[in-house]
């Protein structure tokens, strides 16, 4: 019978597919290494691992603010539900204390845990697969010498059927390009090193490249801007909206110090990145800048022209007064409600004489005002930049209790019009309302970036 044949073929196909899928999805367990947590490592290896862990910003996702470093449990919101980061301290029961180096290497390379389970790509193994075995060894040495902390991460809370991990094998088949990068002999040593750092442990693309419907980085839009923790990660390719384009020097300075005269201070999740990069040698920072600026390419002549004018205005000797670093608007009689608020509440610092990083950035230099999505500037207006704890840092007070949704929208619309040549932003009021209410979740950190006291995370409004 024709129908029977169809059924047989279908069943066979399903069985075959299932078998193939099982073959594809199945990963062996690597036996627990009872001695792993007690192993000793050369101090130089551990020190190198510390640098690499800082580059990888491991601590950011694997630590709940205020809890012991690397003990996991941080909720990472994704479009598919909430994933909780794992404990990567060498605790035998709840951490990676029983992991051999082989198991660790495999996790970094393949995104599979010691027991053979596929890991969600919230753990950016699509980048970490580029990391050399040698660097992984140092990372392993570093993590295995951290204090062991007993801490069980909460269960992930994902949409059906995503809790079923073997499905991840299919995801990997479609989107995961395993292994180290091919050398590009046409490029300089610095560029190659930069690419290794950026593409590998640095995993810059995890935030700065947009993701497709399956949560994978869209390689066709490499570095054209993404999202992290409620913040926009700006485009860092030719689409960069920085009024004065980044160059190697300015980018390296920014990554080294967390701020730049023409670009302001790093904030949101980027603050933690620049905070952690302070452990890296200058040569690596320069290499990252070399590679990333090569992706950005040269600015268009129009952009270059405008930048030259801005440089002339903002370069050189500010007449910063020790006496009073602010300057005052003459009056609040702005033509529009937004202008009035800007002149009375914003201009005193943002048109002041105080230099970066402590003064308000002049909005003529602001990427945020020029960004396609106003989320970042909304976040900063509502929540400010909280002071760092015991470290010099830029501070801005929050305005969420002072400005209504409409007022925030008014002032941002005014600023967009005055300081940018881009189209007006749409839907401002709603965006502000959702950010304020917490419907859109935002992580708030001080600008020194490594603050992890409990009060610094999360929009307070429920």
């Amino acid at each position, binding site marked *: 019978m024709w129908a029977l044949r169809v059924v047989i073929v279908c069943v066979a196909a399903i069985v075959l597919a299932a078998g193939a899928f099982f073959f594809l999805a199945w990963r062996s367990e690597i036996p627990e290494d009872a001695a792993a947590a007690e192993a000793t490592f050369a101090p130089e290896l551990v020190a190198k691992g510390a640098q690499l862990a800082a580059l990888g910003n491991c601590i950011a996702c694997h630590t709940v603010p205020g809890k012991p470093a690397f003990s996991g449990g941080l909720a990472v919101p994704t479009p598919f539900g909430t994933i909780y980061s794992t404990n990567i301290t060498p605790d035998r029961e709840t951490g990676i204390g029983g992991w051999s180096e082989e198991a660790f290497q495999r996790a970094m390379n393949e995104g599979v845990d010691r027991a053979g389970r596929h890991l969600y790509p919230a753990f950016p193994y699509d980048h970490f697969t580029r990391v050399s075995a040698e660097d992984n060894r140092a990372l392993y040495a570093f993590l295995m010498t951290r204090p062991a902390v007993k801490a069980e991460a909460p269960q992930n809370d994902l949409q059906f059927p995503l809790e079923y991990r073997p499905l991840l094998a299919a995801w990997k088949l479609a989107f995961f390009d395993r292994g180290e990068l091919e050398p590009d002999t046409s490029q300089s040593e610095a560029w190659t090193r930069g690419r290794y750092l950026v593409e590998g442990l640095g995993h810059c693309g995890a935030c700065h490249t947009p993701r497709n419907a399956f949560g994978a980085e869209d390689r066709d839009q490499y570095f054209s801007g993404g999202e992290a923790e409620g913040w926009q990660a700006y485009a860092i390719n030719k689409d960069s909206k920085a009024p004065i384009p980044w160059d190697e020097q300015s980018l390296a300075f920014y990554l080294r110090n967390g701020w730049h005269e023409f670009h302001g201070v790093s904030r949101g999740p980027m603050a933690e990145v620049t905070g952690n990069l302070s452990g890296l040698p200058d040569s690596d920072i320069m290499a990252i800048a070399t590679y990333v600026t090569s992706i950005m390419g040269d600015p268009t002549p129009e952009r270059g022209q405008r930048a030259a004018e801005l440089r002339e205005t903002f370069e050189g000797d500010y007449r910063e007064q020790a006496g009073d670093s602010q300057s005052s608007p003459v*009056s*609040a009689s702005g033509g529009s409600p937004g202008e009035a*608020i800007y002149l*009375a*509440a914003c201009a005193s610092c943002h048109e002041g004489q105080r230099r970066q990083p402590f003064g308000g950035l002049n909005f003529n230099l602001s990427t945020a005002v020029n960004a396609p999505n106003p989320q970042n500037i909304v976040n900063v207006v509502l929540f400010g930049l909280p*002071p760092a704890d015991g470290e010099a840092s830029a*501070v801005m*007070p929050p305005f969420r209790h002072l400005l209504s949704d409409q007022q925030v929208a008014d002032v941002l619309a005014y600023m967009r019009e005055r300081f940018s040549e881009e189209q007006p932003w749409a839907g401002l009021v709603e965006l502000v309302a959702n950010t304020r209410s917490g419907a859109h979740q935002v992580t708030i950190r001080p600008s020194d970036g490594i603050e992890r006291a*409990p009060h610094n995370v999360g929009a307070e409004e429920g």
Partner: protein
Amino acid sequence: MSISLTVNGRPHQVDVDPATPLLYVLRDDLALNGAKYGCGLGQCGSCTVVVDGEAVLSCMVPVMLLEGREITTIEGLGTIEEPGPLQQAFIELQAAQCGYCIPGMMMSAHALLRRNARPSDAEIREALATNLCRCGTHMRILAAIRRAGELMQAASLPKADKGRAG
């Protein structure tokens, strides 16, 4: 320009440049001492007042944004003769040295305790994240805020009991 303000429940008309920060209006036009100038930059919290139930830094707020809003300063929490629970707690625990930062601390605490009369230590510290104290009175400030929460609860309990009994 004339602006109408409600401070500690009382309406006021002030004739000032609308860009004037609230702090200067409170001190200069309304002769209130509670809010203090500390930095004018939103970094230290000594100018903290409560606006519609939330702690805000009065040195950074142009007064034009406050038309029709309810402003509370420390003068609104009670008097020497009849101190409110926060004031009572700060006196009881002697939570001041020079005392300059204390009104700002108390207003941050007031906003917190209105929402939550039994805050955890971490919640109190979070509410005071902006407020600086140079004398090192921190331990007493934390204790006084906990104590004020207790006093507030104690004050509200009899009412609740009465409600149940009736």
